[in-house]
């Protein structure tokens, strides 16, 4: 499994690897059909994936599109200095971190809980139906999801209606208008959208657990909770850890869509994250260099997090990413 994850980038030498330049070109000629099938896409890859990396240098410039490449003004680390003294950037950073951790922790806890509950259902038809329905929101675009969430939370939406009916509130609440509530709404939204989908991997892992373990636990007098706690959860531990590491690398990718689509003028202090900051500074205000600097900062932090998480896993003697 570890090898699989390392992909074929692993340095296993190909036994048929040709030696010598002449041999190489001869092979290349013989395999020209394969070359024709792959090289155009390497060119595509270079243009669309590697060329933008050049753009990183503009973080050290005061980039103006009107000027040519060699006429740009170099400003060193001034863009980064500006970022780290900007109060707004700190707020943006705080929002990104809070919502990212929320995404990570909430995503894991809810998905594992739901997987455990589903795993205990014995009526197969009921289980299938619940699964199918719970995957559904994952495939709906965030635009539609945001529309649905706005409708649900609006003053005449179902949440307010129910709260009024039960008499828990005296007047309708403006959920998306309260900045402090945004993180909660964000958490609920991502859980609503993805909890079902995230269970798939755990449920697959649970089917791999040896049934004999459950029987042994039963003999020892374990009830259902004990079996869940002592057999099922340890059985999916390695999957949980691999996914945790992988998601740590994407930690700062807490998403753009939900924050942008649910955000509004009233909750911007809690909804704006790095991606929205980049969009606003870069594309809306054409302050390209500053936006690129913010993007670089995010990428670097992501790399460090991935590295740290992988090392911790290595220390713990668990499966790891590389």
């Amino acid at each position, binding site marked *: 499994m570890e090898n699989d994850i390392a992909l074929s980038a692993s340095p296993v030498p190909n036994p048929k690897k040709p030696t010598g330049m002449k041999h*190489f070109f001869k092979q290349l000629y013989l395999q020209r059909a394969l*070359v024709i099938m792959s090289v155009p896409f390497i060119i595509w890859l270079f243009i669309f*994936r590697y060329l933008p990396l050049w753009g990183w240098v503009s973080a050290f410039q005061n980039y103006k599109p009107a000027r040519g490449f060699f006429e740009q003004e170099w400003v060193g680390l001034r863009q980064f200095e500006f970022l780290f003294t900007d109060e707004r950037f700190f707020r943006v950073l705080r929002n990104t971190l809070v919502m990212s951790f929320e995404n990570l922790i909430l995503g894991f806890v809810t998905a594992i809980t739901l997987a455990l509950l589903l795993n205990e259902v014995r009526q197969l038809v009921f289980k299938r139906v619940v699964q199918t*329905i719970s995957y559904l929101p994952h495939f709906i675009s965030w*635009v539609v999801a945001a529309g649905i969430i706005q409708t649900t939370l609006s003053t005449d939406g179902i949440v307010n209606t129910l709260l009024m009916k039960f008499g828990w509130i005296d007047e309708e609440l403006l959920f998306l208008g309260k900045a402090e509530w945004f993180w909660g709404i964000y958490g609920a939204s991502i859980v609503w959208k993805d909890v079902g989908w995230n269970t798939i991997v755990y449920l697959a892992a649970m089917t791999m657990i040896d049934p004999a373990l459950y029987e042994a636990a039963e003999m020892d007098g374990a009830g*259902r909770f004990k079996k869940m706690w002592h057999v099922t959860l340890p059985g999916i531990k390695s999957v949980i850890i691999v996914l945790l590491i992988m998601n740590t690398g994407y930690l700062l990718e807490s998403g753009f869509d939900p924050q942008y689509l649910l955000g509004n003028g009233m909750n911007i202090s809690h909804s704006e994250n790095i991606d929205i900051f980049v969009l606003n500074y870069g594309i809306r205000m054409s302050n390209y260099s500053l936006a690129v600097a913010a993007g670089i900062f995010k990428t670097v932090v992501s790399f460090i997090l991935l590295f740290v998480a992988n090392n911790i896993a290595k220390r713990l003697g668990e499966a790891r990413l590389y």
Partner: protein
Amino acid sequence: MALADAQAAARSEVRQVRPVRKRRRRYRMSAGDWAFEIFNHVALLTLVIVTLYPFVNQIAVSFNSATDSLKGGIYLWPRDWTLDNYKYVFKEATIFNAFLVSVARTVLGTVLTVLCSAMVAYTISRQDFVLRRFVTIAFVLTMYVNGGLIPTFLLMKSLGLINSFWVYIWPGLIGVFNLIIIRSFIEGLPEGILEASRIDGAGDFRTFFSIVLPLSTPVLATVALFSGVYQWNSWFDVMIYNSSNIKLSTLQYELQKILQNSNAATTAASAFANSGNVGAVQVTPLSIRATMTIVASAPIIMVYPFLQKYFVKGMMVGGVKG
């Protein structure tokens, strides 16, 4: 290989469930077990209701007469049944055009993605291909580094892809994830078949088109579904690249504009509403929103339950492969 794992997992799920059921029938349920059973079913049913209600509610509002909806109180079923909202949405030239663009990008994008990904995947599945490692590493590296929003935006600008339909197709042509799952599937095909076609004198193109492509239908279906959903749901690229050209707008982006403006006085939706009040058709922002939500998610809601197994398969492969 990973796909084989996933299939094995699916098979073992079927095989394993029966003995568990038999065994548990013998096992006497304690009071605690009953309590858990009831709790579990209630929890899962709550999840189903919370997931489905917002969709059902939007469907009800979209089929309810617009003026009647304003009175509120539409929950699960339309009170004053009408098709006017749908008639209005499809008569509105902008929205109908956006619908066509959405369909076009979904069809074209999916076909090209599947074909190109499969081609590259075939070349890197060939152990004797001289450029195999180079191509693989070039693609896999892009999983970890990317230029970010602003450099990509500037690149599209200099490639002349702003205000162009092709910006929906080219940048996302080949995804590394797709490449990896197709490659592992092709590598899992019986060696003899490819060998035989080569011995029979078929070149690489012939082998690819008449042997590999037809045999890879299951994995290509998975990739096509992910790609189709991605294309249908995209709105961000429309917003940043093509927002000034209404002819290239998509359904999701039109909906996003309606949602974003729904609080403001001069909204697209209320403009529709005002202009729509001529003749028999009466619409309001509320009903237009609900109708657009349904139109934008209907294709997915309709096809998804039938194709669910392909999605799940793809997800499991992706989970194992990282």
